[in-house]
């Protein structure tokens, strides 16, 4: 029995261990009922001000701004409940006007947040977490916050400009100066400079830099405070003040709807052009910088006349092209590439197909819309513009050398003349010259030959580009559009047939790697029709054989 006692003890331990394990497993198994994932919230603020100044004791606190605004509004309390006012200006920070150290910040948040909650609870009202409920705010896994870009597009900008609720600035005729400003370094003050308005984000960057507010701070300071004033005045137009109104999907849909209504009422349904001294047409030339004369390859290509006025109409803001400043492109994008221009050369700044701000990049992005993608999605992505299209932008004119003597105005006038002389009509062969039908019979086997309504297809494609000056101009050669199907051979009125290049062989890899992507006739014909229909019309579906082929009886 002496020997049996420790054995019994161990058995006891084991039993307890197994029991605990089971309990734990059970507890894990009993998860909370699965809730539908909460929609990302635009008003969720993660208060991590202290994170920049040292290590945090607890995860940053989360805060639902709209929830608090709404709760306070019910009690007829305003922003001043949480935001102090200094010199008549509301501070954007919580219960303070100046930046302070972590210890003080901790006190400010704990004393005021919990204090307010305690008062509410004492008064018998529903309220937020109290002292001791640390993790209710300091949540390591806060719900997802998603603030959409508020954006200030052309129409919304016009609505502000035309608003009677925003009075003219000082002695000016318009109210531009209410928002737009420059900074006077000597006087350390902002001032309004007429005709020099730019985008906010040129100076107010993603993060605060050299004392210049971040775009987030600046936008909230400028927009929210003004909106609050207007809301207090009780103006007719709804002024968004809640987070959701500008950064939530619902709020933005509301803004878009109102934008549409405003545009509908405008003459030509067009927002008036914003004038700040820009030319109608520009001759894009490269200004050779000091020290660049040697070594750099001179530009031999003829300069491009650029229709600045028309492009203003196509873009939502100046930033669509002038992404970092209102200066000319060649200021940062030099011939050899410079640090200011992220080493993107002048040539790349115009031609980079993957570029967001380059001419070719923007035009390529337009080709992804369904109207264009039928043909354009199959065009091999070389990362370069189509070679045949060079001369459509680089119109024949004088060489850079001959232009050297011209003034800017002279160049721009020259550009305007060149632009006017362009043929902006899509090229097309006379309808009678376009074969009405094309019979595809080379491989007819199980089915009867296909009678393709050739002319109908051509006319339909022409119709698709009717409203786009971009499409019209770049398809001005009558053979260009034909190349959507009759590809890889020079544009011609009588292009070669599919069989000229595609063999009848099926499914066999070519021994020549350069020919690797050339399909056989069956796949070439199917591929050409099906991919276009998939991208443009979504019908007939690729497996609906008999919609194109009549069955042999």
């Amino acid at each position, binding site marked *: 029995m002496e020997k049996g006692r420790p054995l019994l003890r161990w058995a006891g331990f084991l039993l307890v261990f197994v029991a605990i394990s089971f309990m734990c497993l059970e507890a894990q198994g009993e998860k909370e009922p699965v809730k539908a994932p909460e929609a990302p919230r635009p008003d969720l603020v993660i208060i991590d001000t202290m994170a920049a100044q040292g290590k945090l004791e607890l995860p940053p606190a989360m805060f639902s701004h709209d929830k608090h605004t709404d709760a306070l509004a019910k009690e007829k309390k305003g922003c001043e409940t949480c935001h102090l006012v200094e010199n008549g200006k509301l501070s954007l920070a919580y219960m303070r006007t100046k930046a302070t150290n972590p210890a003080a910040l901790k006190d400010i948040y704990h004393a005021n947040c919990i204090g307010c909650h305690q008062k509410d609870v004492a008064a018998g009202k529903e309220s937020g977490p109290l002292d001791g409920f640390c993790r209710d705010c300091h949540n390591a896994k806060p719900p997802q916050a998603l603030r959409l870009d508020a954006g200030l597009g052309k129409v919304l900008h016009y609505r502000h400009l035309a608003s009677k609720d925003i009075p003219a600035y000082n002695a000016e005729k318009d109210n531009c100066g209410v928002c737009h400003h420059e900074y006077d370094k000597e006087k350390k003050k902002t001032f309004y400079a007429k005709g020099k308005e730019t985008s906010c984000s040129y100076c107010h960057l993603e993060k605060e830099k050299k004392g210049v507010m971040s775009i987030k701070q600046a936008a909230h300071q400028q927009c929210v405070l003004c909106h609050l004033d207007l809301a207090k005045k009780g103006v007719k137009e709804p002024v968004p003040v809640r987070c959701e109104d500008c950064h939530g999907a619902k709020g933005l849909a509301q803004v878009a709807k109102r934008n549409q209504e405003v545009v509908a009422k405008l003459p030509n349904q067009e927002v008036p052009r914003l004038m700040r001294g820009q030319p109608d047409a520009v001759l894009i030339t490269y200004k050779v910088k000091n020290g660049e004369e040697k070594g750099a390859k001179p530009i031999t290509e003829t300069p491009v006349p650029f229709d600045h006025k028309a492009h203003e109409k196509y873009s939502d803001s100046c930033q669509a092209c002038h992404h970092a400043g209102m200066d000319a492109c060649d200021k940062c994008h030099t011939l050899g590439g410079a640090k200011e221009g992220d080493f993107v050369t002048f040539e790349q700044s115009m031609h980079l197909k993957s570029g967001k701000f380059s001419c070719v990049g923007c035009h390529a992005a337009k080709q992804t819309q369904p109207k264009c993608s039928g043909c354009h999605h199959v065009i*091999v992505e070389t990362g370069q513009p189509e070679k045949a299209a060079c001369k459509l932008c680089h119109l024949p004119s004088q060489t850079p050398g001959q232009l050297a003597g011209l003034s800017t105005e002279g160049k721009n006038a020259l550009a305007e003349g060149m632009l006017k002389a362009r043929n902006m009509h899509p090229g097309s062969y006379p309808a009678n010259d376009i074969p009405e039908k094309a019979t595809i019979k080379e491989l007819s086997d199980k089915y009867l030959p296909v009678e393709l309504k050739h002319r109908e297809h051509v006319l339909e494609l022409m119709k698709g580009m009717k409203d786009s000056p971009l499409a019209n101009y770049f398809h001005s050669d009558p053979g260009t559009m034909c190349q959507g199907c009759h590809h890889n051979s020079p544009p011609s009125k009588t292009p070669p047939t599919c069989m000229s290049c595609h063999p009848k062989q*099926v499914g066999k890899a070519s021994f020549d790697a350069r020919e690797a992507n050339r399909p056989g006739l069956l796949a070439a014909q199917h591929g050409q029709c099906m991919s276009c229909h998939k991208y443009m019309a979504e019908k007939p579906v690729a497996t609906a054989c008999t919609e194109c082929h009549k069955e042999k009886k």
Partner: protein
Amino acid sequence: MLRRTFLGLLGAGGISAVLGKAAHAAGNKHFEGYPGSFGVLFDATRCIGCRRCEAGCNKVNNLPPPPEPFDDLSVLNTKRRTHAWTYTVVNRYDNIPGAKGPVFRKNQCQHCLEPACASACFVKAFTKTPQGGVIWDGSVCVGCRYCMIACPFDIPTFEYDQVLAPRIMKCTLCNPQITSGQLTVPGCVGACPVEALVYGKRSDLINIARSRISAFPNLYLNHIYGEHEMGGTNWLYVSGVPFRNIGMREDLGVTPAPELTSGALAAVPLVAGLWPVLLLGIYAVNKRKDQVADQEKQEAVARAIARAQAEAKDTLDKALAKADENTKKAIEREVKKALEEAAKAPAEEEGE
């Protein structure tokens, strides 16, 4: 068994295991497939899900007609797998993020460069042909179906409805038909109307796949499935959506299946050949030791007995001798006594 003996055996086992590994590593062979072997490249961006490949396969392999005709596309509403009567199936995958419309994927034997089925088969019923296809030989198959368990792609199937001579059924890459000259490309490839399938040398197919990816970087993922998966396969895939979204395993790694088991299997001859000898030897040694001890004991006992017997005899002899002597002495004494009495008596008679 003695503790010391057990530990000794453990040590011996450990050393042999290490030696086995080292020998394998020194071999270090890396098989990159038969040079010039053929394969098929499947392009998921081209496949339209028409099931013509299934019909083509069915025709050239003389498989039984399916319950639903091949132009019935409603079967795509369910995810299907290969069966004894279908070497290949096309499945449809809907609602893939980033894809325009559904994406289709054809499934069949991948024809691994180093097939798992072949490595699992203990009668060598599977052959990786130099042409690329993995084929099955019914004359040696014992029907264990290890191949079906070994295949990471769940491809080989079994004719469960055949009682007497069930076969393992799977795609052969049309190896018999192509080598005999009946076909120039596999049945499925020849039936594809959009060239979503291309038949050619594996090395050419990889080049084709690469050229497609580089010509349309936005249309394709930069990955050729089967180039390295499971050590490489003769069937290759390119796609515009992640392969996991079209029902393909992304957890297989790049190690060929035989390599995963070769270490353990290499130990089999060692265990099967060496251990019996070792164990029998130990047994024999132990046995012999016992025998010797036994013999010695017996000898000792015999000796002891002999000695004891000799001693006993000696004692007895001595005792007997002594007894004899005593008896003699007693007789002599009695004789002497009698003689003395006899001598005395005449004297008394004379004295009277």
